[in-house]
């Protein structure tokens, strides 16, 4: 490798370890993406099926690196006023009414009204003006309108915004940015170009088993294996909505809380709705229950 010094794999391994301590198990792809995002100061765009832990990735990284988390949940109709800043109209009105002084000039009042005192910073402005480095989590960016996405671009490329009355505000410390998307629509090429792309899929068997054992403390290995077998078998069935990791974890905790150290068909049947949420899917799985139980293995505890 000419001109490129060889770098050992320690930093990526360190990220994996740190994230694990923060309660999140990364595979190589995820750890490499986090590492690159940190080194290249680029936002990460994480896509993947619902409930595989895209949002959790951001939260866990903020715990691991001790970065304060600022979260912006996107939805249809989200606009600059709610994402960036807004003038506190009501406070301004009170100020005007409290100050009915015929002598006072409008100019003085105006300078006063449009000062930081009356500014309501929303997540994006907070992330930019923060004195310390923060983690900005822009959640479900696919739910926001196209116009908002375009506006986001400006912020993501320079990390500065202009507030007409106050001037340009640029970031003191570059925030670490994670965007998540459930792909309900295609994001623009421009946004994709500016981000590192990370696709998070359902994890491999061994890693998912580790995730269950990490997130449901005290679950026995045997029970975790059987829980996983049920989930992965159900995922292979032709369903409208397959059980996600978060649903798997909910279900595993429920099974554990109910004091069961084993898994039988009565227990599975009564808790199935935690795992499978579409009515039609539920009927389908119920019909296949004996086979599901068989696939989860014999009882040998």
């Amino acid at each position, binding site marked *: 490798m000419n001109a490129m010094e060889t770098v050992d794999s320690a930093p990526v391994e360190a990220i994996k370890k740190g994230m694990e301590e923060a309660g999140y198990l990364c595979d190589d*792809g995820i750890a490499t993406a986090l590492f690159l995002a940190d080194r290249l100061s680029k936002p990460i765009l994480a896509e993947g099926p619902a409930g595989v832990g895209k949002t959790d990735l951001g939260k866990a990284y903020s715990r691991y690196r001790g970065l304060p988390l600022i979260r912006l949940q996107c939805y249809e109709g989200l606009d600059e006023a709610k994402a960036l800043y807004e003038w506190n109209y009501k406070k301004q009105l009170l100020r005007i009414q409290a100050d009915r002084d015929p002598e006072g000039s409008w100019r003085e009042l105006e300078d006063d009204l449009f000062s930081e005192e009356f500014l309501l910073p929303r997540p994006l402005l907070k992330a930019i003006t923060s004195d310390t480095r923060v983690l900005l989590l822009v959640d479900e960016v696919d739910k926001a309108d196209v116009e908002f996405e375009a506006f986001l671009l400006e912020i993501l490329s320079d990390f500065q915004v202009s507030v007409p009355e106050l001037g340009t505000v640029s970031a003191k410390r570059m925030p670490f940015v994670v965007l998540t998307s459930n792909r309900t629509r295609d994001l623009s*090429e421009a946004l994709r*170009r500016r981000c590192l*792309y990370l696709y998070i899929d359902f994890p491999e068997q061994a890693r998912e088993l580790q995730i269950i054992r990490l997130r449901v403390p005290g679950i026995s290995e*045997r029970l975790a*294996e059987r829980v996983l077998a049920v989930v992965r078998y159900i995922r292979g069935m032709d369903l409208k909505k397959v059980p996600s990791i978060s649903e798997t974890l909910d279900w595993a905790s429920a099974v554990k809380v109910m004091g069961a150290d084993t898994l039988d068909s009565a227990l599975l049947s009564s808790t199935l709705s935690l795992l499978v949420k579409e009515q039609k899917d539920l009927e389908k799985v119920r019909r296949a229950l004996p086979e599901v139980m068989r696939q989860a293995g014999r009882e040998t505890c």
Partner: protein
Amino acid sequence: MPVDQKLLTFIGRLRESGLQVSIAESMDAFEALRVVPLDSMEPFRHALRATLVKSELDFPLFDAIFDSFFCGTEALLARPEDGGEEPAAGADPGDLSEQVRMALSGGNAADIVALARGAAAAIGRMEGGFGGGSRPLALMAGPGYYVFKGMEMLDFARMTRDLRTRAERGELAGDVPPALATERLLQDIELFRREFEREVVRLLALRRGEEAARRRKRLPVRPEEVDFLNASVRQIEEMRRVLPALARKLAARIARRHSAGRAGRVDVRNTLRHSISSGGVPLEVKYRKRVPAKPELWVLCDVSGSVRTFSDFTLQLVYSLHQQFKAVRSFVFIDRLDEVTSCFEKHDADDAIERVYRDAVVVDGDGHSDIGRALEMFDAGYAGELGPRSTVLILSDARNNARDPRAPALARTSERAGKVHWLNPEPRDKWDTGDSVIGAYEGHCEAVTECRNLKQLADFVYRKA
């Protein structure tokens, strides 16, 4: 080749295959390679993928190009001989097969890889030493031949079927739940297959040069770009898999466009109500939403032979979007026409399609399409219900088996309906060749649109919905 140059060539290869890589992105890739550990292949692959490929749908294409570029024959030849080269020398095929079976049941990756390599060497010896031996025919055989012969020698298909049955019954891996054991087994089988193939390629390249070993593998095509008319069974399966996502995305796009009409008239009432919170000063102006009218859709589907795949997908797509239309009525035909709207009212689009093929009466005569007759039946039976808000959508290749196209029937329908659109799954250059009579109908439609794959279909629906 210096690394920078090689990376540039690689990016060029990606672009040639249709991936869009901007200059900014390729700079990111260079940047990434400067910081990422390069002591093994995977971080390298992850770094390039995160910076260069921005959609998961493009991953298979990227991986295929990456493999052939960075793990191609050149890299294989550079692999040091590892001693475990020919463990099965002189072994008879039965023994070898048994060893493979044991390794796959055991699930130890290193064993599986070693055996796959051994098996590749063994089949080479048996089949004339990869062209190095005395059989002249062996000089012409490519990697595909050896892979086929090798799998046959090992009785691989039957072995893996047996193993799978045992795994599903829970007889393979002791206490491990069968679902997990089966999944691991399938991965191991894939590992064996891949390693076997790579070793065949490597040995061939060693004996006869790289050219002989080149696999003429076609690069994967995105499911939404596969032609309806010549999709393989597997491709149709993949298309089925991506269709719900496509429909969801399309619905979101259409809904957004419908809601984009928010710059309607000022809503005085609402504005005044909101002004109360700012002391009666109307700081925020509220607007009334403008709701665009929805069209009423009539779909006529040709369900004969090869056009059927296309009609299937279109029907499914239309019905997953049904809330975007005021009403949808659907008809299928081969040489006669039958209404199938009721099938879709009670069932899922999937079940409904099955039902359509079971219940609809679409054949009178010999089972060859007669589009003219179907159009005439439609005109006679239903044209009275058409109005200016109705859109008629006809899906057919217009191959009429030399029968009368009966274009005047379509002309009459077209006069009553608001719009008539024709979607043809054939490529444009095949229109009006052979028994295609699309030209006779074209004048009576607002447009005849080429619609060869899911992508074109989705684009059409978006433009018209």
